[in-house]
């Protein structure tokens, strides 16, 4: 789960990590009052979760209060388009004003989970302010990585490896070590999957300040961080995805025309691939889970049918824990209740498959029953 920069900076401040003096603004009426209290130069930063906001025009460095106010007027309420948002962009609902700091040097610093090595990796670079993937490609020698055993925590020699690797002067080294230790503790305390500070500024006063802050929290850990869970901002997500999540359904909207409902994530992905291979585009990923019941099937139907692009539905269920007869009853009930008008291909296999097929056949509904997956693929092609 991503959180906003201003939220991440709240966590930083709480942890004792220095961030620029800043104020959050969520309506245009507040702009004048906020700006009058701050000393320029000011950074005006759109608070959106999508990456690439700087290049999209969501961040302005203003030399004067007037310039900052003008920038804020135009950014707040705009549809910000970045490489991660799609053509429609996302609505900027909040702005962060920050006072400029005298930057002597810009560094890059991040901490993340290394899934291959099953440890924590710290990545630092002297090329701050740049896209780290670009640095990794063009000048990999500028990147220093340190792997930390999660059982042993961050050791002094590992911090020194970064300090010497970045050629930090003694006075800066002390503040950097302090920041890194606090950042590592924050990472572990809040079950982060990534924290990134880019740029991390070294000031004239030998301080290190987090000019930006990106924090990703492991969604599976939210049961032990209810306060973080409350930070979840769904406004940039697809409303259908938000609705599906509320019903405990794993749904991702795509731009095709064939909706699908599947039990299990791997089979759901493979089903999307199968739809594509049949020459049509999948409208969604929907995993109703292994323990799905009739109610979840109905909710799944409702979500798929709310997508106006959908022209047909493919249900692919391998009955294990979820028995085919239960699934079939759910499908029939939902189709009746929702007055289903789209063509539906149902492919079931596994536990109680014969009973399931019988229920579908006797329902009197226009449900097309597929034998195996190859048969289902050809039925899908015919459907359109």
């Amino acid at each position: 789960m991503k959180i906003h920069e201003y939220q991440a900076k709240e966590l930083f401040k709480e942890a004792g990590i220095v961030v620029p003096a800043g104020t959050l603004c969520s309506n245009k009426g507040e702009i004048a009052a906020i700006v009058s209290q701050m000393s320029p130069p000011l950074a005006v930063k759109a608070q959106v979760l999508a990456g690439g906001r700087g290049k999209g025009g969501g961040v302005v460095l203003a030399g004067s209060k007037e310039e900052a106010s003008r920038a804020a007027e135009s950014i707040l309420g705009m549809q910000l388009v970045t490489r991660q948002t799609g053509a429609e962009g996302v609505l900027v609902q909040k702005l962060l004003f920050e006072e400029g700091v005298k930057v002597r040097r810009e560094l890059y610093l991040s901490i993340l989970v290394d899934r291959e090595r099953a440890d924590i990796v710290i990545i630092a670079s002297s090329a701050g302010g740049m896209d780290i993937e670009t640095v990794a490609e063009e000048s990999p020698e500028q990147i220093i990585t340190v792997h930390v055993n999660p059982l042993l925590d961050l050791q002094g020699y590992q911090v020194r490896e970064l300090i010497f690797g970045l050629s930090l002067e003694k006075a800066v080294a002390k503040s950097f070590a302090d920041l890194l230790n606090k950042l590592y503790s924050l990472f572990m305390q809040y079950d982060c999957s990534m924290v990134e500070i880019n740029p991390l500024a070294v000031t004239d006063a030998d301080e290190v300040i987090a000019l930006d802050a990106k924090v990703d929290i492991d969604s599976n850990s939210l049961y032990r961080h209810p306060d973080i869970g409350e930070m979840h901002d769904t406004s940039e997500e697809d409303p259908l995805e938000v609705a599906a999540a509320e019903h405990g359904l794993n749904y991702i909207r795509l731009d095709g025309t064939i909706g699908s409902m599947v039990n299990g994530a791997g089979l759901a992905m493979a089903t999307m691939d199968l739809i594509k291979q049949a020459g049509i585009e999948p409208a969604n990923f929907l995993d109703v889970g292994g323990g799905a019941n009739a109610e979840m099937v109905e909710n799944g139907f409702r979500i798929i049918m709310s997508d106006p692009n959908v022209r047909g539905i493919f249900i692919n269920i391998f009955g294990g824990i979820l028995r085919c007869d239960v699934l079939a009853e759910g499908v029939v009930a939902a189709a009746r209740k929702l007055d289903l008008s789209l063509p539906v291909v149902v492919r079931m296999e596994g536990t109680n498959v014969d009973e399931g097929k019988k229920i579908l056949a006797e329902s009197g509904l226009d449900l097309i029953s597929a034998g195996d997956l190859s048969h289902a693929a050809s039925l899908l092609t015919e459907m359109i």
Partner: protein
Amino acid sequence: MAIFIDHNTRVLIQGITGKEGQFHTRQCVQYGTNIVAGVTPGKGGQKMDEIPVFNSVAAACRETGATASMILVPPPFAAEAILEAVDAGVELAVCITEGIPVLDMLRVKNGMAGKKTRLIGPNCPGIITPGTCKIGIMPGPIHMPGGPVGVVSRSGTLTYEVVHQLTAVGLGQTTCLGIGGDPINGTNFIDCLSAFQNDAETRAVVMVGEIGGNAEEEAAAWIAKNMDKPVVGFIAGLTAPPGRRMGHAGAIVSNGQGTAAGKLAAMRENGIHVCEKLGELGKLCKTVFI
């Protein structure tokens, strides 16, 4: 012959008195698995059906000689449950639980390094040696005992689909297992492939991967160097949009890494028979394996 479990495996269930625990215990017993004990702290001395329940894994092992554990406890307690099984010295721990925080699994993975316990999962359907022993939540009847095919997968229901097709074309299975859909897991593809290579009864392997990480690429390179048994590979997620987590915590394409296309290419380069259309997997296996 089979890998990791056979007729000597004595199984205990952690979380046996829970709803899921009871249901799947009965399913496994019905399949013929030798379930000797259950563990639910505080319910020691009780029985679930005829199975004795203990307060700890250590006590269950001591009293019943259990050699393997199936873990069916909720995510907040699952990491600890794995460590308890490791500490009690079981040979095999199979963790079905989905949704364990990543940092918990990092600690477990590092904490059990060098210990004798093999962990399968978490977030997996488990392992089955058809006709002999089932430690997992997969539907038993779709399997066909006697080999010659070993199946290893990152998925659950997708594995059932694959097994079902194998059975339909008359290809039985030696052992089928899901290694789990989480970013940090115990047993990986290479561990399973290596065991299949060394298992006399297994004559061919189906490997089912999905987007995210680079386990499939590593496995493909390993196969080219170390295996002389034919391998058919399938990857789910060709149509997955980048940057989105496709249900499984580990199924995400990030910065162009972990794509299905990249994994399929790695498989092809390393001599694996790639199955592009899931509906034709059974037929392809029949052509390649027989």
